[in-house]
């Protein structure tokens, strides 16, 4: 009972100091099962991966400790370096295009029109559909002779393309699929941002006779910037890691023209079963993603500060 009596006044002033007062140890039993699971399937694999990356570790042969030589090997592995370039190109396009189209879609879905709820449901279907099933149909659509995409191009007088079957067009073609798939996520995040914008700036803009583009450029865009940043960050993390679409459509081909880091990691670990080297790639890959996220956060911080500075 004494514990209860103590918690009553604490609860009364919980608004003032929620951090300290609402932290009794008795909530721990709720967290312990999840903690065990997280330790087993997230923390343990990470520790083990780091350990493996320091070893020569191939399935079927003995393991030897080799220190950082797996990491050194990465710096002179042309296939890895090439995969980094592919990943950067793929990611840059797969962040930019969904951001542009997603923002446009969000502005449209922010308006009121009949059937909006249903159409929004249809619009987010590409993002929720099973990626492998999607990839399969896109592969058929990309077919140089029988594909429906080349047919549409022929209608507007553009010669047939090789799409994912040519090294020069394979990454843009895959980005097309990625953009089709993930524009809805950007739309949802930006839509959340639009909902939070007050009506006053729009009313005064209307009085001032601003046109649609001016309203978007000078009122909407600055106000949804934080949401665009979040969307861009999430998009970046997912695009860097993209696997299903690339693997199911091209497996990194033709040749190695669409081999991203993640696809190369798969080949090293589960085609050549070079697990030590694969682990080193996994670690570097993870650090790369964290670094990219950190750079974006830093850029955001900078932007916030310059905004404050310009206000003052």
């Amino acid at each position, binding site marked *: 009972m004494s514990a209860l009596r103590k918690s009553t006044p604490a609860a009364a002033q919980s608004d003032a100091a929620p951090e300290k007062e609402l932290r009794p140890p008795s909530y721990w039993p709720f967290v312990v099962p999840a903690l065990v699971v997280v330790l087993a399937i997230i923390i343990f694999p990470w520790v083990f991966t780091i350990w493996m990356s320091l070893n020569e570790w191939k399935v079927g042969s003995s393991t030897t400790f080799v220190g950082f030589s797996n990491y050194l090997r990465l710096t002179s592995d042309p296939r890895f370096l090439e995969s980094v370039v592919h990943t950067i190109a793929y990611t840059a396009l797969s962040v930019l295009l969904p951001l542009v189209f997603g923002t446009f879609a969000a502005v449209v879905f922010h*308006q009121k029109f009949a059937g909006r709820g249903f159409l929004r449901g249809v619009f987010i279907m590409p993002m929720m559909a099973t990626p492998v099933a999607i990839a399969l149909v896109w592969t058929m659509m990309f077919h140089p002779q029988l594909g429906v995409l080349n047919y549409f191009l022929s209608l507007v007088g553009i010669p047939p393309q090789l799409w994912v079957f040519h090294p020069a067009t394979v990454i843009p073609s895959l980005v097309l699929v990625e953009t089709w798939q993930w524009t809805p996520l950007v739309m949802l995040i930006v839509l959340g941002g639009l909902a939070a914008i007050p009506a006053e700036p729009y009313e005064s803009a209307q009085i001032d006779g601003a046109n649609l583009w001016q309203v978007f450029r000078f009122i909407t865009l600055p106000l949804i910037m934080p949401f665009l940043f979040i969307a861009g960050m999430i998009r970046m993390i997912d695009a860097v890691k993209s696997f299903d679409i690339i693997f199911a459509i091209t497996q990194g081909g033709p040749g190695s023209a669409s081999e991203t880091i993640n696809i190369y990691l798969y080949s090293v670990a589960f085609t050549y079963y070079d697990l030590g080297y694969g682990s080193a790639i*996994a670690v570097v*890959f993870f650090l790369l993603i964290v670094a990219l996220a950190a750079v974006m956060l830093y850029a955001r911080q900078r932007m916030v500060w310059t905004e404050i500075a310009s206000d003052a």
Partner: protein
Amino acid sequence: MTPRQIIGKIGLWLSVFVIVSPAILFFLWMLSLSLKFEIDNAAYPPVFFPEHIAWKNYADVLASNRFLTYFINSLIVTGSATALALMVGVPAGYGIARMAAHKSAIVILIARITPGLSYLIPLFLLFQWLGLLGTLVPQIIIHLVVTVPIVIWIMIGYFETTPMELEEAALIDGATRWQVFRHVALPIAKPGIAVAFILAVIFSWNNFVFGIVLAGRETRTLPVAVYNMISFDQLSWGPLAAAALIVTLPVLLLTVFAQRQIVAGLTAGAVKGG
């Protein structure tokens, strides 16, 4: 309506059409491919509305007993991984929210950032060592990588918004913390649990990368099964498209019918696993 308003109206509907048509046309084309005989699928220019509908494509896919096995595999893996995730994740989300232990959520963020393949290398060795490869257990366990962070993340957010007054009143009345959770917090959190459940099911059902490494011939889930069909049936598009549509249909239906929950969940956490 003034002319200006009419132009605005037309512009709006034109924009809606432009935005929604890539999704609609794609799924209609998928349906069209799945309902055509090979002659129509191999025709150029493409046949959009077939004269003869090939229901046989669906019948063939459903009649192959392997497909049924893979469907059941998918049900077992997704069902178990989601149920386990709810069992550990809902209380964890509650505990973290009530302790205001926001820093612990960083583990969830790490899980969100980590590429799925990084989990696979060590866990693959572990499962091999335990002799579990060839059963569904490895896939159920590794799907927790997807489902547990989703559930915890959404439940933290949800429990933070539920009012504390009722819980405090119950505590004063002498209820234990477990009773408060079970009889006060949990009933209020049902909508949040529904969101977590739906997203966990979808992302587990869709998962592909864990299956291609861990699944054997008998333990494939549907996405892996469909992927393996590509290499076998490169040229018979009808049955392939039918299989692809069957695999993704449950998810598409869920998307349309549970749209509000999905949108709420995705805008809250924007979680995606793997």
